[in-house]
Structure formats: C-alpha cells, structure tokens
C-alpha cells in the first residue's frame, strides 16, 4: 500500500497575534510553528494502515525549508518513510487552487493508493485543498472522516454530517480528509526521533515537478482584529414581572432584536 499524507505547518493555537489595527500583512515574528493538528490524524491513520498491512508513507508539504524539523518530528519520527518539501519563491502568496495544483504535480510522480489530508489547516481554516486535489486528479474523495476500514481495493469511511453520520464506500485510489476522533495520534519515541534524521527528505521546486502555479484567484487584502466585546448589562429588580418588561423593552427599543 502506497500512502501519501499532505501536511502543513501552522502557527500553534496559543499564538498571540499582534494586530492593533487593520493591516495588509500579519506580523509573524515570534510565531511557534507546529504540524497542523488535523494533519496529525492523517499521519497517524497512515501509520496504522502501514502497521497492519505494510507499505510506504510519503509526507508531502508546501512550505519554507524551515518545515524540516516539523516533518522530521511529527511525520518521519512517527512512521512516515520519506518526506517531500515543495519550496519555491513562486509560491509566495499562493492560494488554495495553486497549492492544490502543485500538490497534484507531486502526487502524480508516484502511484498512491491512498492520499490523506487533515480536514483543514487551523491557520486559514479554508478546508478546500484536499477536495480540490481529488477533483483535479479525478479521484473519489470522502471528507471529514472519523472512521476508516480498508477492504481489497475499496474502503469504507464514516463521515460526520449535521446531526448524524454517513457511511461511504468507495474504490481505491481515493482522497480522504481526516477529522478529530479518527484516532489518537501517538508521540514519537526517542530512538525514532534519532532515526528520523536518516530518512530521505527531498526539497523540490515547481520546475522540478514540471508545474507552473496559476495566478492566485484569491487575494488577501486585509487582516483586522475582531471587534471588541461589548459590555454586559444586567436587568435587576425584586419584581420579576417588572424586570421582564424592562428586558423586553430593551430588546425591542435598544437592541432592536424583537
């Protein structure tokens, strides 16, 4: 079984963002960067499949060369066999469609039976790249999976839907996006961290992959801080009926919601 896991490095969820006023760019100095937490479910699922059936796992990312440490620690040290970093100045400001094109070019270099993604990256929260890749490659996809069973040349995945779950069968090769609940990602052991440095890690450009990233369809124009939280007003009084009347009046006349 050949598995590809597409991952992204993101600022960790505790990052304090310094943004006093609207700005075109975020000041990212001092950000701690980690593996996107949803991608950890994808990596863990791939490793479990490999442990059960054998195979090879390739972790693929688009990002700066500094993602090496994250790939080593959170992909190679937990069981991925090799890593590919797509690093190219052409990709500065690339949008999801461009990232998907570039990933497709890298994925086409090999014959993967299964391609795994996290459901979304916690930085831009867009959640499209996995599905775009599936469409561009003409492969079936199942998104937001919380359970996976592999058959012979097929898979059965459980996916979350509003108020329930959907059980989907589909043929391999396929693209899946992984949701929390799919598994519990393991921590790497010390010996595996030490060995991760010896696993192959390839850094490639768009030219190496024979792809020209398309111009961005989406442009980020401004980041603005969330509006300050309003103040809370308490309607008090010993007479419950009077307090309720006052509340209704405020909701109607001031807040204008009823």
């Amino acid at each position, binding site marked *: 079984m050949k598995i590809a896991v597409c991952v992204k490095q993101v600022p960790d969820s505790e990052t304090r963002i310094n943004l006093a006023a609207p700005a075109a760019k975020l000041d990212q100095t001092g950000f701690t960067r980690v593996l996107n937490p949803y991608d950890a479910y994808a990596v863990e699922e791939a490793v479990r499949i490999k442990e059960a059936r054998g195979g090879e796992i390739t972790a693929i990312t688009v990002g700066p060369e500094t993602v090496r440490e994250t790939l080593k620690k959170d992909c190679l040290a937990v069981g991925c066999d090799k890593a590919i970093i797509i690093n190219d100045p052409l990709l500065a400001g690339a949008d999801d469609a461009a990232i998907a094109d570039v990933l497709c070019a890298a994925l086409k270099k090999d014959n993967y039976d299964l391609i795994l993604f996290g459901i979304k990256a916690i930085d831009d929260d867009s959640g499209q790249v996995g599905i775009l890749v599936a469409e561009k490659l003409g492969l079936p996809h199942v998104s937001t999976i919380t359970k996976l069973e592999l058959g012979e040349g097929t898979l059965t995945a459980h996916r979350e839907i509003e108020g329930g779950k959907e059980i989907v069968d589909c043929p391999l090769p396929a693209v899946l996006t992984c949701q929390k609940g799919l598994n519990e990602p393991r*921590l790497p052991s*010390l010996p595996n*961290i030490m060995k991760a440095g010896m696993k192959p890690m390839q850094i490639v450009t768009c030219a190496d992959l024979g792809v020209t990233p398309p111009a961005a369809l989406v442009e980020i124009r401004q980041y603005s801080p969330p509006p300050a939280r309003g103040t809370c007003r308490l309607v008090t009084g010993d007479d419950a009926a009077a307090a309720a009347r006052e509340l209704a009046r405020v909701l109607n006349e001031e807040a204008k919601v009823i």
Partner: protein
Amino acid sequence: MSGYRGVDFYHFDRCLSDEERSIRDTVRRFVDQSFLPGIRGHFRDGTFPLDLIPQLGEMGLLGPSVKGPGCMGLSGVIYGLICQELERGDSGLRSFASVQGSLVMWPISVYGTDEQKNTWLPELAAGRKIGCFGLTEADHGSDPGGMETRAERDGDGWLLNGSKLWITNANLADVAVVWARTPEGVSGFLVERGMPGFSTNVIHGKYSLRASDTGELVFDNVRLPDSARLPGARGLKAPLSCLNQARYGIAWGVVGAAQDCYDTALRYAQERKQFDKPIGSFQLVQQKLVTMVTEITKAQGLCLQLGRLKDDGINDVPLVSLSKRNNVAMALDCARMARDILGAAGITDEFCPGRHMANLESVYTYEGTHDIHTLIVGAEITGLSAYR
C-alpha cells in the same frame, strides 16, 4: 493543552540541534497530555502514576544516556533536556527517572558484569522492572562514609545486614542497588525483591515529593550470591560517582520547575487586576518577574555548558556541584516569588508553584545538600576541605 512554551529569552534554542529540540518538545507534550492531568490527584493522595511507567519506557525516557544492552547511549544534553521537561511536570516524575537511569542503570552499566547488564538493563530501560538506590541511612546522610550496613563473606556468597532510609522508589523497586561496608571497603550489591530477609517500608506524612515513593530498605541476614555484587565498584567513590550522574540531571531538571512557576506567574500577572490595573503593570511585580526570567536564563546557560562539557568527557564533581547548588536554590526562589505573585490563589493546588516549592525542598536536600555542595566547591577553589 496548557499552552506552556518554556522560557527562551536568550535564544538558547539556537544552540540545540533539530533532534535535541524535537526530543525536548516531545517530552513536553507527553507531560502535558499524559502526566499533568493526573498530578493534582497523585500529589493529594501521595501516589506515583504507575500507569505511566510503560510509556516512559516505550518513549525511551528511562536512562537515555546509559550505554549498554537495550539502551540508547544518547548525549548528556539530551538527558538534561528530558530531565528539564519531566521536572516541569513534577520533581517526583524527574526523581523517578533520575533514580532509574542515573542511580540504577548507570552503575550496572559501568560497574556490572555482562550477565548483570544483560539481565537488568533492557528490563529497566523498558520500564518492565523498577530500581532504587540505597546509600543514605538514618544516621548517615551527608556523610555516607559512616554507613553501618554491612556485608560479610558467607561461604561463596555474602550476608547483608542493616537498613537504608529516605530511598526513592523503595517500595516500587524490583531491584535495589545497595551500598554496604565489606572487609574490602564499600561495595555495591543488587538486592532483589523477594529475597528472604529483605523488606521495605513506606515513609508517610511527607509534605514534599508527595507524588514519589520514598521509603526504607531493611536487610535482616539477606543471603546474596557473589554474582549479586557489582564487581567494578570499589570504595565510597563508586556510589559518589553515581550521585554525580544524578546531580547532573537535577541541575537541568529544576530549571524546568522554575520555568513552570515563572510561566504561571507571568500569565497570572497579565490577567489579574487590582487597583483597576493588571498586577503585571506594577513595578514591584515586574521586578519579581524580571528576577525570575534573569535567574532562569543564567541557569539555562549553566546547564547547556555543563552538558556540552559532559559530552566532551569533562564531568568533574565541583562543576556539577556548582550547577546543582545554584539551580536548585534558584528554582526554589522562583517558586516562592511565583507563589507570592499569585496571592491567595498561590496556596492552593489549582496552581503549580506551591507544589513545586514543596517538592524543591527535598531536591535542595537530596543528592548532597545545598551546603554540602558549597563545601565541595569551596574545597575545590581554596584547596582546603571544610568537611573531611
């Protein structure tokens, strides 16, 4: 997730390799995910989280720098970083790992026979067996040379009599490294649980290191085969050499506890308002926070240099003494300052500084008291010993 990120005011991270940082971050995650959710309960109940021992072994956190069968022989700096992260969790967790790695596995790897190494090291490294180290006695702490526990020749073996007190992991241990006076000087023996005449007792009523087992080892005519003796260990310098390994880990470990206290106090001071302002805006509170971050940064510098020296084969006792002495006292000061900044909230187990402070009182005393390390460094620089 606690959101704990440690302190790196001076960018010491730049001096670490990818592997060193990855291991540090992984142990930090282990402590966040597996250890910290249970620590309040264990500290209250006076218990060690036994269920985590297999994971400590699987991850490779037991004796990582020991060389021998089933062991990884990683660097001193990596061992130090692991101690730092474990002690950020609790000094009891780091104590468990220090005893297993530095005081049990290390002497077996250095002073043991091949048979002893093959029997014990893989089991201890995996956490399938637990060890303890018996040097201190009720009447002989800072001066272990006065020990009364004796081993006499008995046919082709030995007869062991005496007792050891204040022994970490005493009641959990499958094997005890016991130091005893013999006609040939101080020797080390591997005493196994279940040997007739060997028993252990729990020390109750501790207010420090509550999430750690501390006890007594009692030897009443314990008959040992000659193969239980560590043949390479002769004289008092053998147990003292083990302590030098463990103290090294303590010098790093306590910096983790100090960082946890500082991190907690800093966040608290930014959120807590008095006189309509965050208390972090008051000069006196800032002075405390600055003192903490300065002292932590200095201690980090000591650790890193101590570690790089150790990895270059320079591991002299006075070098380790200076760092153990400085860093433990520093951590204790940080815990007290952090407790102060938390006001009344600081006296409950809702926050870590009170627990670290209580723990660090033990760390201040064990593995050579603060003052004994003063005397070791004093003897080194003056050439005049105040204690021998």
